């Protein structure tokens, strides 16, 4: 082995050597936002892997923001693949008109209701292995390492992206503190929108925090919420501003 000139060069070479081990069959889904895409290892979300998404706080509005974040991603996937998204829940409190405004009309979703987390995970796995869906979304309260590894394998086998929405169980215990085999882990929080010159609520903003990703570094970003086709945007005029919320960032994933 030739003498490595620097630490980063070694890392680059090692990365190239393992890049062939896992052949890519599915193109990554870019966010079409260079700010996010260039920081992701695959320059987008892996289309055959598991992604964990959790609200930053145990409040229902952060939970709604995380739901809309997933809805925006899956809306673009469903529109591109022209099939449906399987959305598995254990307690149905989604409001379908709201999902339609995030880009998922009723003809693009298939809801499944399991009795408990175990059923939700089993239904997700079936949907992932089938391979005809645009994406599979599951809402669980807890999923251990084994469950997430099974989902990751099923997503790989069916070439279907899986989104595991982890909801808060206890105050003070972040759902992302549980170990997971997910490729990326996201934490979403609501952020104040820009004040309009007239009375009214502006376009929603979120603090999107990538807590962990395979082969890349975590980051945090303030974005404008996804529109009716599921596309995020950057706040105008503050392109390179770091997220203001520091408390969540400091916690280890």
């Amino acid at each position, binding site marked *: 082995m030739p003498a490595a000139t620097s630490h980063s060069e070694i890392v680059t070479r090692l990365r190239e050597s393992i890049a062939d081990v896992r052949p890519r069959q599915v193109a990554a889904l870019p966010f079409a936002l260079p700010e996010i895409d260039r920081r992701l290892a695959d320059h987008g979300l892996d289309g055959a892997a598991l992604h964990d998404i959790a609200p930053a706080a145990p409040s229902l509005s952060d939970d709604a923001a995380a739901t809309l974040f997933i809805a925006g991603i899956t809306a673009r996937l469903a529109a591109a693949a022209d099939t449906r998204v399987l959305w598995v829940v254990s307690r149905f409190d989604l*409001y379908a008109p*709201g999902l339609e405004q995030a880009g998922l009309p009723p003809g693009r979703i*298939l809801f499944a209701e399991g009795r408990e987390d175990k059923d939700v995970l089993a239904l997700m796995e079936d949907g992932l292995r089938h391979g005809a869906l645009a994406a599979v979304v599951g809402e669980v309260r807890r999923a251990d390492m084994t469950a997430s590894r099974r989902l990751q394998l099923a997503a790989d086998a069916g070439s279907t992206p899986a989104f595991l929405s982890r909801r808060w169980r206890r105050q003070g215990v972040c759902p992302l503190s549980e170990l997971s085999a997910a490729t990326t882990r996201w934490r979403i929080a609501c952020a*104040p929108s820009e*004040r309009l010159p007239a009375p009214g609520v502006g376009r929603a903003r979120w603090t999107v925090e990538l807590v962990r990703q395979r082969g890349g570094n975590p980051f945090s970003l303030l974005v404008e919420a996804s529109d009716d086709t599921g596309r995020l945007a950057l706040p105008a005029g503050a392109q390179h501003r770091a997220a203001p919320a520091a408390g969540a960032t400091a916690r280890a994933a």
Partner: protein
Amino acid sequence: MPVDDDPGACSVPRGGNWRPGARWAREGARDRLGVAAEATALPLHQQPTMRELRRRSEAAEHPFKGRQHAPLAATVARAERAEAPAPPLILAHQIGNQQLIAAACPAALALGLVPGMAVTQARALLPGLDIRASDPAADAVVLDQLASHAVRHWTPTAAISGADGLWLDLTGVTHLFGGEERFSARLLGFCRRLGLTARVAVAGTLGAAHALARFGGQPIERIEVGREAQALAGLPLAALRLTPEALAAATRFGLERVGDLLPLPRGPLARRLGLASVRRLDEALGRVAEPIVPVVAHEVPVATLRLLEPIGTAEAIEQVIRDLLADMVEQLRTRGLGARTLVLALDRVDGSEQRLAIGTVRATRDAAHLARLFHLRIERVDPGLGIEAMRLAAPRTEPLGATPLGGTLAGDVGLADLSTLVDQLAGRAGPTALFTVGAVESDVPERATIRVEPMASPQGWPAWKRPVRLLRRPEPLSGVVALLPDHPPRRFTWRGHAHAVVAGDGPERIHGEWWRRDGEVWAVRDYFRVEDEAGARFWLFRRGDGVDGATGDLSWYMHGLFG
């Protein structure tokens, strides 16, 4: 106004405490009892309601509500209860330009309303007659169902006779039911339980049975083989299934009964009434054989396997299921069908039977897919000491032609079929666990959605801003500070947390649906979309429009969350 003619007294009645329109000053003032007596003297439907009688304790009825006038509704109900015997019922059908009676109930028949009479004449005779349109197609369907029931339960050979009869070939089957008489009695009882009036005739020929059942007069008629001529001799000629022309000709010649035909020479008879009439007579008397065209019942595809030795392991059962499915798929393919429901019956050694049923969202003949669906259920089988026979039936099938494979052959992967996934998930979580949410035409948010079947693609909703999560029940807010009538709140407390609002949109006014409940007649909800200082966005509403107290009590509720 009464004029006071006495100038000595005060110029106005009651010493000046006079008010225009006072009750005591009105013309012919009436006391309460008198009014009540007058009201009760009126016919029931004209009686005033409590509200009109100035009884303010009674709530006013909404004028446009589709409810009947309460006293009138009570009358109708009482009248129905009192008049137990329903009016005579007739069925009418259109013949050319006139409406004729097609059928009449026994009460109508007793009053002389016979089939064939004009409906106008019947109505003139009996004004309260219940007249309904006859529906021959529905009658035919019922008769068809009866025929298939007969084929399945009584005899392998049954046929439909005319518009109102069934022929059952009882050869070699009556001993199963205890003889012809007992079978006839059971048949009558069966029809009575269905609400049908039936007459049964047992005879050696189809024609004789047809004639006796319709013209015999007794509910059960039985004649021995060879005695048809004596039994039919007294019946009218119409019993012989003759054409109308032949019947008219027979009337011209003075032939009225079947017995009139018997002594006549056959040659002139054939010349006058036609050869077909003579043939009908011969068929009824048994001189000429008449074939019966039986109804063939729809056959359910069944595959059966009897096992040499009892099996008990899941692998062995699955192997047998695969063999049965291969057989079943072959049967379905030859018939051009696809299965929607499959029922697997497993016979255990101890004589008990277990059943597994699967359903599919779309007709299919895919053996691998069906085997996967059974695989999910196989853990529910209790083999006991072993299973010795298995039977697979497809009680519900649909036509399924060949499936085009063009895209696949061209190398295009295309869209895989989601229906197999739906079957699989429904097999795991239950048939109601899979659904799509469709729209209902209602502005009230919690009524705007409905669960529909999983593969449907329903219409969406109007583009009003809606939250992604809706609380199951709106939760009341406390400590709300808001300007009336149409400003979003400045601050509110929800679930113990105080929120200071920095921006708000609204109101979006949603009116109650007055046609559903009395309480929603005037109800109004004003919805606001607000954002608090931490960036959380809520969907709130206020009951009432802030001006009119009848529209709501101005309480505030949380209903949903925007991300």
